[in-house]
C-alpha cells in the first residue's frame, strides 16, 4: 500500500530525516514511535508532501508520490490527520466535513456524514456548532471524520492521543480499531506506548531522524531492552 525508501528531509540546513524507510500493507496499522522531535511528524508530513523530501522514494499504490503537491496525494486516496487538531474554527461541523469531501473510490469504504456519525456519535449532536467551540477530544474526532470524508484508502494519523484525557484516549483506541475493521490502512505516530500496544500491528522506532528498530508490536512488548533504550518505559 505505502512504501517509503531512503527518505531524507531538511529544514533549512538542519537534517531532520536521514534514510527513513518504512512500509504498510493493506489493512495494517503501523505505528511510528519516538520522542518529541525525533522526526515522527516530519516523516508523515514528508509523505504527505507538506514538507519537501530532499531525497528518497515514496510509493503509494505503486505510484511514486515524492514531489507531488499535497492535494494530488490526497486525491489519490491518502488521508492525513495532523497533530494539534487543526479544525477550521469558524466552520461548523458539517462544513468541516464538506471541506474534506471527495468522490467515491474503488476498494475503499464510501463515507457520508451519517455513516461517520455512527462511529463518532458526539459529532451528530453538534452538526452546526463551529469547530472552535468544541472540546479538544471532539475536535480530534472531527479531524479524523473530516479526513474520512475523502474516502481514503490509507490515512496518516499524527499523535492522535496527544493532550487528551485518558478516558478520551481509550475512546480513540476503539475508534481506530473500528476503522481497521473497515479495511483501512493506518500509519500513526505516537509517544504513548500503551495506546500503540492497543491498536497497532507493527512498530517502527525513530530517533534523531533515523529508524532504529522495526518489528511486530508483540516483539516490541517482549523486548524490554529496546523499550528502555529508545522509549524509556
Amino acid at each position, binding site marked *: 500500500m505505502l512504501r517509503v525508501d531512503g527518505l531524507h528531509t531538511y529544514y533549512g540546513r*538542519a537534517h531532520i530525516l536521514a534514510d527513513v524507510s518504512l512500509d504498510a500493507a493493506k489493512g495494517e496499522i503501523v505505528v511510528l514511535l519516538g*520522542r*518529541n*522531535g525525533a522526526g515522527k511528524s516530519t516523516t508523515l508530513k514528508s509523505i504527505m508532501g507538506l514538507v519537501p523530501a530532499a531525497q528518497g522514494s515514496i510509493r503509494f499504490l505503486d505510484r511514486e508520490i515524492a514531489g507531488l503537491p499535497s492535494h494530488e496525494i490526497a486525491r489519490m486516496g491518502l488521508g492525513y490527520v495532523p497533530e494539534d487538531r487543526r479544525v477550521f474554527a469558524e466552520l461548523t461541523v458539517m462544513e468541516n466535513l464538506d471541506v474534506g469531501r471527495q468522490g467515491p473510490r474503488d476498494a475503499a469504504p464510501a463515507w457520508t456524514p451519517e455513516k461517520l456519525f455512527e462511529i463518532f456519535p458526539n459529532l451528530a449532536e453538534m452538526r452546526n456548532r463551529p469547530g472552535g*467551540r*468544541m*472540546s*479538544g*477530544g*471532539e475536535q480530534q474526532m472531527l479531524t479524523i471524520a473530516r479526513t474520512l470524508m475523502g474516502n481514503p484508502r490509507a490515512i496518516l494519523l499524527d499523535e492522535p*492521543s*496527544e*493532550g*487528551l*484525557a*485518558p*478516558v*478520551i*484516549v*481509550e475512546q480513540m*483506541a476503539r475508534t481506530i480499531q473500528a476503522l481497521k475493521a473497515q479495511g483501512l490502512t493506518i500509519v500513526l505516530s505516537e*509517544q*504513548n*506506548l*500503551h*495506546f500503540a500496544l*492497543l491498536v497497532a500491528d507493527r512498530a517502527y522506532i525513530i530517533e534523531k531522524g533515523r529508524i532504529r528498530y522495526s518489528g511486530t508490536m508483540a516483539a516490541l512488548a517482549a523486548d524490554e531492552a529496546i523499550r528502555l533504550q529508545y*522509549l*524509556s*518505559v
Partner: protein
Amino acid sequence: MSVLSVRGLRKSFGGVEAVAGVDFDVTAGEMLALIGPNGAGKTTCFNMLMGQLTPDSGTVSFDGADITGLPPRAIWRRGVGRTFQITATFASMTVAENVKTALMSHRGDLGRFFARATALHKDDAIALLDQVGMADQRDRACGVLAYGDLKRVELAVALANSPRLLLMDEPTAGMAPQERVALMELTRQLARARDIAVLFTEHDMDVVFGQADRVIVLNRGKLIAQGTPPEVRAHKAVRDVYLGAGTTSGGH
C-alpha cells in the same frame, strides 16, 4: 500556610460557564496538580490566576493580597513565575540571554538605553541555569534547542524573580515519558528547597500520581474531587469522567 488562595472563581464565554465557582489553596513547598478532561476549564482557570483573563467573579489572593484582575506583569512582579503549555521563550536570544532578560526585568534594568546588557547579571544567570542543568548549553540559541531543554530554560526563567508560587500549564506536554518525570522531579526538588508553592496541570498520569502532593479534579468548570493521589485515583466520579479504565495510561 497558603500562598495562593482561590475563592468562588467564575468565568463564562458566550453564555457557557467555563469555570463555575472554584475554590482551592496551595501552600508553600506543595506540589498541587490540577487535572480534568479537555475543556473542563483548566486553562481558563490558569489564565485567570496569571492575569491573562479577568474573572467574572471570585477572588485570587497571593500571600494574603488580592491580585484578581491584575495584568500578568504585575502579578509576576509580586513573585509568581509561570511556564506555558507551548514553551514561550525568546527564540532570538541565547539560553543565558533569556534568563538574563528576566533578571534584568526583575532588577529594574530594562529602561536603560545605553548600558551594555552583555555584562549584566552574568553569574546569576549561570547559577540559575546550573540548577536546571542547562549551564553547559548557555550560549546556544533558544530557537534551536530540543523541546525538553526548552522546558528547562523556561523553568530557569520562571525562577529568576525568586518566586513564591510557580504556575505550570501542562509542563510536560510534548516531552518523552522519562523526560516528563525528570522535569517534574527537578521542579519538586526546587520547590522543596526554596519553599515554592507549585500548581500544575497535567495529562500524564505517571507525573500526576508520582509527583503531586495533592490533586484537584476539574470537570465542566467545577471541582469534583480533591485529595492525595491515591484518594483521587480511587474516586469513582474521577474514573468515569477522566481516568477511564487505565488501559492507555499505564494502569492508573
